């Protein structure tokens, strides 16, 4: 009997952003993101409440992957941040917070969404073209002949993740390792275009951070007993390698739906084993020295191979297959029938390594583009965080090699950019004072403004909303009641501790700006970021000598930050543009 149930009507909500509940959840999400931001950000313990493992983190990728948000608006936001992070690894929190700030500010100032959206787009293009231009005052070109800037970049990534629990010495050690691992992935003989190798992170959980190290080649973890069985390796200049993707465990391939019927006395297992041994004979005949298998090798085949002095390594795992095939130049073999000689590759040497209580089988390549970063940290939760951080740092370095420049970090780029935009708008205003409602001479050709669809007040308010979104983002770097200041020359960020005396000589209280480029000993004027801003022209074009001398700068990845900015503004625009939410209740 069929039972038909009437469909429930869809639920339609108009103007979702005006709802009090939506705003409340949005501000909870913003609170979560904001409190994680920066080197002194607070950590979050992610757990299932039932006694499972606990993840302590302040990184957006770990955080958002575990947040299960229910509201569609929040889903849009978290998804676009996650998409950004999956492409660029860095600046996830930046994107999320900026997006929340923009939405909040537009609402607070009572702007009409359509105008705000258009103007936001305009302001975004102003930002991106400035950041990409030569005169940009917060961008530093990367000089690959020295490691200084790259080290600063890596160090900044490590410093901004407090849950790694690294001391200063450990940060130095890990930064150097990451940079070395990255440099090892660059091939020495480049032709037309570079194909970067791969750094594999090998866990040394429970061991000291200072014991972490980088080795060229690939390490496969093994128990001591297993390793003793395959020792000693023979001496040779080069080892011929065969890499199997297919299981050599001797089991039958999946019969699917059908059933295999065998006569009593016929052993399928023996039949497969015979096939395996034939394969072994071919390998021995082809003078293979090392056989590796992603899955399991049958013990009899192993015994056969070791009798013929062929080293057999099984259970390599799927994660290592690609780097192994890349490094040795093998074609992973997917069938048992016959092997074409072109699938074999080679390695330079084999050896064993021991770190702490772990043993590894070490393959040393002929050409070093694959390396292993052995990473230790005291316990699981901080190790997970450190691993994610190292991956981010390696990715950031890769992005930097594509676009060889970096942005000033520590909030200086944001305050500088806000000052620049304010000044651009004001600059235009003073020039056009007598020419109301005709915006044609704005230094960027903006057809939208020409049409006269927005008033000067709207433009001013939207600019204010945009700039204060950037500025309050930098305010989120401060978590302990301190104040944020900006100087009136460079537009950089300066922070001052909570409970500081009110009337002071600023240079005594401040030391260096957020990115560490400028010192307070220069003749500068400061103002509180929260107070009303007087527009000024931030000094463009970084002086080269300043960049050259400073070796402890805080830097951000250019590509990641630029994309974060775009994603934040576009997502905010999308959310502001929503007028209905239609929910299917069935």
């Amino acid at each position, binding site marked *: 009997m069929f039972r038909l149930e009437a469909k429930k009507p869809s639920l339609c909500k108009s103007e979702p952003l005006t709802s009090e509940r939506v705003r409340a959840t949005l501000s909870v999400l913003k609170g979560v993101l904001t409190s994680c931001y920066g080197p002194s950000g607070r950590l979050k313990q992610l757990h299932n409440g039932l006694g499972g493992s606990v993840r302590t983190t302040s990184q957006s990728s770990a955080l958002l992957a575990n947040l299960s948000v229910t509201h569609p608006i929040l889903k849009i936001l978290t998804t676009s941040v996650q998409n950004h992070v999956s492409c660029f690894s860095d600046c996830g929190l930046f994107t999320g917070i900026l997006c929340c700030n923009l939405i909040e500010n537009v609402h607070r100032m009572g702007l009409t969404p359509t105008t705000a959206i258009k103007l936001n787009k305009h302001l975004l293009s102003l930002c991106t073209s400035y950041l990409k231009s030569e005169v940009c005052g917060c961008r530093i070109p990367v000089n690959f002949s020295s490691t200084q800037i790259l080290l600063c970049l890596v160090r900044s990534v490590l410093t901004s993740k407090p849950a790694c629990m690294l001391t200063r010495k450990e940060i130095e050690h890990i930064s150097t390792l990451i940079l070395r691992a990255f440099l090892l992935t660059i091939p020495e003989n480049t032709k037309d275009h570079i194909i970067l190798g791969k750094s594999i992170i090998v866990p040394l959980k429970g061991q000291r951070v200072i014991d972490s190290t980088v080795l060229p080649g690939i390490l496969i973890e093994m128990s001591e007993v297993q390793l003793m069985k395959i020792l000693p390796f023979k001496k040779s200049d080069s080892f011929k390698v065969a890499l199997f993707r297919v299981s050599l465990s001797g089991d039958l391939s999946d019969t699917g739906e059908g059933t295999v019927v065998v006569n009593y006395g016929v052993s*399928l297992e023996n039949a497969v084993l015979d096939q395996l041994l034939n394969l072994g004979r071919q390998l021995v005949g082809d003078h293979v020295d090392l056989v590796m298998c992603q899955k399991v090798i049958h*013990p009899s085949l192993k015994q056969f191979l070791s009798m013929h002095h062929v080293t057999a390594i099984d259970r390599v795992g799927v994660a290592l297959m690609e780097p192994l095939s890349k490094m040795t130049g093998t074609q992973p073999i997917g069938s048992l029938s016959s092997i074409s000689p072109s699938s074999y590759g080679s390695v330079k040497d084999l050896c064993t390594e021991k770190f702490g209580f772990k043993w590894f089988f070490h393959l040393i390549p002929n050409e070093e583009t694959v390396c292993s970063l052995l990473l230790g940290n005291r316990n699981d939760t901080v190790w997970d965080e450190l691993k994610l951080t190292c991956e981010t740092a390696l990715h950031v370095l890769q992005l930097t090699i594509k676009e060889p420049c970096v942005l000033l970090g520590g909030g200086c780029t944001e305050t500088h950019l806000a000052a620049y935009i304010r000044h651009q708008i004001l600059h235009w205003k003073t020039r056009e004072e007598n020419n109301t409602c005709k915006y044609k001479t704005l230094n960027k050709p903006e057809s939208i403004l020409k049409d006269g669809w927005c008033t000067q007040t709207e433009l001013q308010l939207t600019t204010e909303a945009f700039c204060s979104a950037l500025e309050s983002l930098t305010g989120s770097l401060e978590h302990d009641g301190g104040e944020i200041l900006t100087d009136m020359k460079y537009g950089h960020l300066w922070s001052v501790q909570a409970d500081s005396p009110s009337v002071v000589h600023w240079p005594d209280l401040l030391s260096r700006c957020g990115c560490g480029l400028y010192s307070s000993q220069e003749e500068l004027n400061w103002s509180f970021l929260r107070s009303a801003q007087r527009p000024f022209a931030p000094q463009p074009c970084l002086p080269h000598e300043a960049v050259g001398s400073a070796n402890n700068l805080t830097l951000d990845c250019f590509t990641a930050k630029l994309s974060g900015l775009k994603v934040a503004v576009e997502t905010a625009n999308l959310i502001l543009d929503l007028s209905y939410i239609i929910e299917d209740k069935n």
Partner: protein
Amino acid sequence: MARRGVSRRWHVGLQQLASFAHAGSSLLGPVRSPKFVVDGEGPESVLVSSAARLLERLDLSSAVGQLLREAVRAQTDAYGTGAGTLLSLAGAWSSAAAECLHLGVPVPAIVSGMSEGLATCLEEVVALQVPLHTVCDQTDSTQMPAGPGPVGVGVGPFPQSPLGAGLMPKERGLHGTAPQASATSSFSGTPGKSAALFRPQAAAGTDNDPAQTAPTPRTSLRAAPGCRKPALTHSRHCCRAGGAPGTTGRPGGGLEQRAVTPRAHTCKDLAELAAGLSHGDASSMTLAEAALRLQRRQASVRQGGGAVPLTFDVSRVFTCCLPGLPEAASCVCAGFVTAVSAAGTPVPEDVQNRPLRVVLIEGDLTENYRHLGFNKPARAQTVSESTETLRQDGAEELWADRVLQVLAQFRVHLVLARGSVSERLVARCARSKRLLIGWVDGTVLQAFAEASGAAQVAYVTQVNEDAVGSGVCVAFWSGPAGGAGDGAGSRAIVLQAEGVNLVTAVLASPAAAQLQAKEDGFWACARRLHHALQEQTVFLGGGALEFLCLGHLQVLAEQPATEGDRVRSGGLPIAAAPRPAACPALLRPTVLRGLASGWRQYLSTLARNAAGRSSAFEAETFIQRHVQSAADSGSPSSYVLNEYSRLSGGILSPGHSSHPDGGPRVYDTVTPKVEAWRRALDLVLLVLQTDSEIVTGRGHTQVRPQESEGFLFL
């Protein structure tokens, strides 16, 4: 998803951490009070006597509890010791951090201040390192006979007394070992002499001669093969006159001696080192020491009697627990000992005490066992004309026939398997005078493979002449020599082979509940010894380290803020300075005092455990007085070195003021100790910096109303 905030001033996580740690406070130090953990619903109860075991049993479902358990487990896995220190310090430091928060110190200042404080303390305690480069085994294992057959070093049941515990077992242990010494062939030592005999009554500490702990020249002359640098150390010890009468009475009296003793003196004797590392568990340490000696002797035999470096490979040491036997039956045996019940095996008379040919199986020895990763075809049917042959047990019988055939063909009488063994096969093998032993550890198999020349195989069908080893002997374990193990009967069997690198410590206890604790105690001692010998250095222990840190922090906290670190250096919580950003000078003393209070609490817990509750106050004034004099002396490290005996005596045996020399020295391992501190502080700082918990996977409905307070939903 729900999110729960953590109150700013009263950090819940820190409070939880402190309360968890409090539960383990009686398990710290040499004198412990074991606890019974009772299942509230069932009749089960477990006796725990170490912090790591306690945490395994506690219900730590909260996030902080999980992190604590994880930290302790990581420490235990890596070093096998230091879990108690970690737990205690984590608790003390979390209270200290909570106190700092309450005083209004911002979180980054606490984080940086405490990390900096610990870092300077770690630099400071280097002064208390005792190098072991010259340590040698004065009693070089001449007492133990070689050759197959069960041998052992007996250990009596000793009360765990903090005083004199280091030496008593040695003397008792000798009763069991001396009579057998004549069986030794490879060494030319005088049987029955050990360092313990050369320093009788040292533990009693009735005379003040500081040189008594040193090996006398007579001992040094008897240079054993393993002794690399037999040096005469008399003059060095004379310099260490810190405890000499006259100067000990007044605090700060170490000033004039500071120049004379710039470093902790070295430890030269293995027995002294072992006693110092026993931390009150002398009987376990005696076993561990005996295991070390036995291992070295085995290594020396393998190398043809040459000198072997003084190291301790704990991966080749095993334990075998035998409940129901008196404690005196505990001993150390060469080879592998396994309880008969565990093997489930009747041992045929014929296989005993003669070299056997052996096969090593690296999996189960059953008909339907297949190697890991082999998937049985799910849809295979076997058809046959007669139904009889398809019966399951028929198949097993056939398989057993084949196995026996192979064993007979290669004249194999002993099979060791890593996994389970088919009972039917065991019974059939027993009839044909063959022995099958299951559940043998992989390392044991490896050791026998090395010693007997066998190769490990997965299936019996793989056996060929190359895979068969020879020369393995099986015997019943007869208890330690000297009759201490009467009644051992046929409880366990011993497997031995010429040159096998294996030592088993047999642990016996009349109460089965105690065995776990005894096993843990043995491993803790063995791992400590291992780390000490591996690092070639130890710390002066017994509270000296913590004293030094306390004194050092006191000096630091009293230092006026220098011009260099102005107020403004703290104004940069954002990245200009990498973590830890410098702690503001104004707040630093507060934070450092907090850090110091952790060690203070640690020391007073030690003293309280050692002396009972009554003298807790006394202990605290004692600590306070000495910390102040250490700080006043200008150089806390020299003070601690000079006053060492009195300090450690005061902590570990308060009330025994009649021992100005404090009895034997106590040592601590270096990396495990330091790492325990780091882990404890890391845990506290991790919890401190956490401002909210995010509970995943629970919607509005799943959070019960009574606990929904404080939750925010997304």
